[in-house]
């Protein structure tokens, strides 16, 4: 394994770690641990996947460990106070949407489109901390709701509310910044 090739992955890994952990020091630690583990385990890398994909897999494990440490040492993040009003604003008092959802076109094509993925990342960065941590733990780290509750310290009801708010905000953010712009 070429140490320089690994070091070149550092900025990308840091960005991903920051997205999930929302804390510079924890993100730095998780990335340093990941690069070291990759060097140590280089023999076990069989080239079934690209090196970068393999390293991101290691990073995800280090991030799960970091999340568990975070929840032990820090108090629970309160959700941002503006989200309920923002979601209220999407619906009329009778429960219908103010504006119908737009047609985004073929999902398969969107998944392969770099611009769409870049906008998604920008929208994820803008999510309030509590929503981002829970949403990414569920959808990026692919933890179950029970695991997210355990690792974050939130109740199942809170996790469900945070996931709902995160999904609504992300959908609006993408519709505004990507769909409307293309």
């Amino acid at each position, binding site marked *: 394994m070429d140490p320089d090739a690994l070091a070149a*992955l550092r900025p*990308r890994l840091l960005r*991903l770690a920051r*997205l999930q952990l929302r804390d510079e020091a924890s993100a730095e630690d998780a990335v340093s641990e990941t690069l070291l583990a990759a060097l140590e385990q280089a023999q076990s890398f069989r080239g079934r996947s*690209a090196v*970068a*994909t393999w*390293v*991101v897999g290691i990073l995800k494990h280090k991030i799960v460990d970091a999340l568990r440490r975070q929840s032990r040492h820090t108090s629970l993040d309160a959700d941002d106070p503006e989200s309920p009003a923002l979601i209220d604003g*999407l*619906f009329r008092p*009778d*429960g*219908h*949407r103010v504006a*119908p*959802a*737009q*047609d*985004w076109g073929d*999902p398969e094509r*969107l*998944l392969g489109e770099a611009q*769409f*993925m870049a906008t*998604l*990342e920008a929208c*994820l960065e803008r999510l309030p901390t509590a929503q981002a941590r829970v*949403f*990414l733990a*569920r*959808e*990026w780290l*692919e933890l179950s*709701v029970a695991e997210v509750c355990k690792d974050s310290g939130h109740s199942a009801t809170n996790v*469900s509310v945070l*996931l*709902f708010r995160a*999904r*609504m905000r*992300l*959908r609006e953010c*993408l519709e505004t910044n990507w769909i409307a712009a293309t």
Partner: protein
Amino acid sequence: MSGDELDRRDLTPWLDCRHAHALMSQRLDEPLGTIPAWRLRWHLALCESCRRVREQLGLLGRATRNLGP
């Protein structure tokens, strides 16, 4: 009686979009009960906007899982 009202409300197939959005999010994390699942199906059959949201919420999850190098 308020208890009767509650029962009747639970048995109506009608669901508004806001409630449908919440159930569509919930369904990505855990299986819905029989009645909520049925009411959601009913709503989706009638509401094109919510059918789009269903696709889009699924896409958000898949796209997020693809975040990598």
